[in-house]
């Protein structure tokens, strides 16, 4: 379950910001986890609670935004929304797709005190 090491990465980012911005408590963490990223948001929620125990982010609310998968279809020259990798273009059925969005894994914002 690589989500655990990603949660450690989220905590590293929080602790770096805490050192830079001088806060000592995180009450909310907003993430973007794209539909085409290699990550299961449920596993992130579980891992986050485990990894943040006894840290400044313990008990913080996790809000996960899930941007939809976006791909450019080379066959019909348009940007389309796809639910998963390997799915065809919903307009023309082609698989000649290049993912252009919805694969992000990002810490967007922290609510701190």
């Amino acid at each position, binding site marked *: 379950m690589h989500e655990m090491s990603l949660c450690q990465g989220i905590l590293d*980012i929080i602790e770096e910001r805490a050192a830079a911005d001088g806060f000592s408590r995180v009450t909310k963490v907003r993430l973007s986890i794209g539909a085409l990223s290699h990550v299961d948001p449920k596993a992130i929620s579980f891992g986050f609670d485990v990894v943040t125990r006894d840290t400044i982010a313990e008990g913080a609310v996790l809000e996960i935004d899930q941007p939809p998968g976006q791909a450019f279809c080379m066959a019909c020259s348009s940007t389309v929304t796809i639910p998963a*990798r390997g799915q065809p273009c919903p307009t023309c059925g082609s698989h000649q797709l290049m993912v252009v969005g919805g694969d992000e894994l990002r810490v967007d914002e922290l*609510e701190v005190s």
Partner: protein
Amino acid sequence: MCTVCGCGPGETRIEGSNDHAGHEHQHEHEHTGPDGKVTRHSHHHHGHDHHGHDHGHEIQPSRLIKVEQDILAKNNRFAAVNRQLFAASNTLTLNLMSSPGSGKTTLLVRTLTDLRDTKPMAVIEGDQQTNFDAERIRATGVPAIQVNTGKGCHLDAQMVTQALGVQPAPRDGVLFIENVGNLVCPAGFDLGEAKRVVVISVTEGEDKPLKYPDMFATADLMIVNKIDLLPHLSFDLPRLIEGARQVKPGLEVIELSSTTGTGLDRWYGWLGSHQPLA
């Protein structure tokens, strides 16, 4: 992760490197209170047991901080370091990934045996436990270092950086990184490699590219191994390739058998046709 020495949580062990389990860390830092008063103190941590602590600060109103930082930023920084090291030694580095049992190590042993007199080569072996694979590699006369990830399910870029500290990348040669056998987790972690090679054997299901699309979407080459067994199986090879190219349009495919040697010439040709990243 410990920011002092860079050793991570969990149980990663790298052959030949120092044991990071028991050393002591001191973190000195300061806090500014709401009244502007600066408090400075330090904590001792032993054996990386980072306990929580209460500073007794007054409650402050909450505020929002924009971060917009990639969760994999730290991994990507180590990957960039590895890439610089590979460029400096002019090493072509390949990240080999597959399910357990696809024959990655057997393919490597055969490759190293056939090519060891033509170019410098070395191997970084990732497994949860044991040095079995590194020992198999070293029996060919090619240097190998084992990284045990403990409970970890993939290699990350920092493990590779640490391994390179013990066994530098072969100058003007090829470094093979054999990732932990796992068709899911390694896909997300850039190790600083030039190319990614996914190995699948015909004793697995032909629908794997569609079941595990992240791995195939990030691959530069798919090696279909154990094709000498095809007469005994009902494996649908065209369907495998079609599924892989649905996930990664234009994906290169090489069919081979490490046992009989069929198709190895194409694999060696592919290896010879790729240059290290500048």
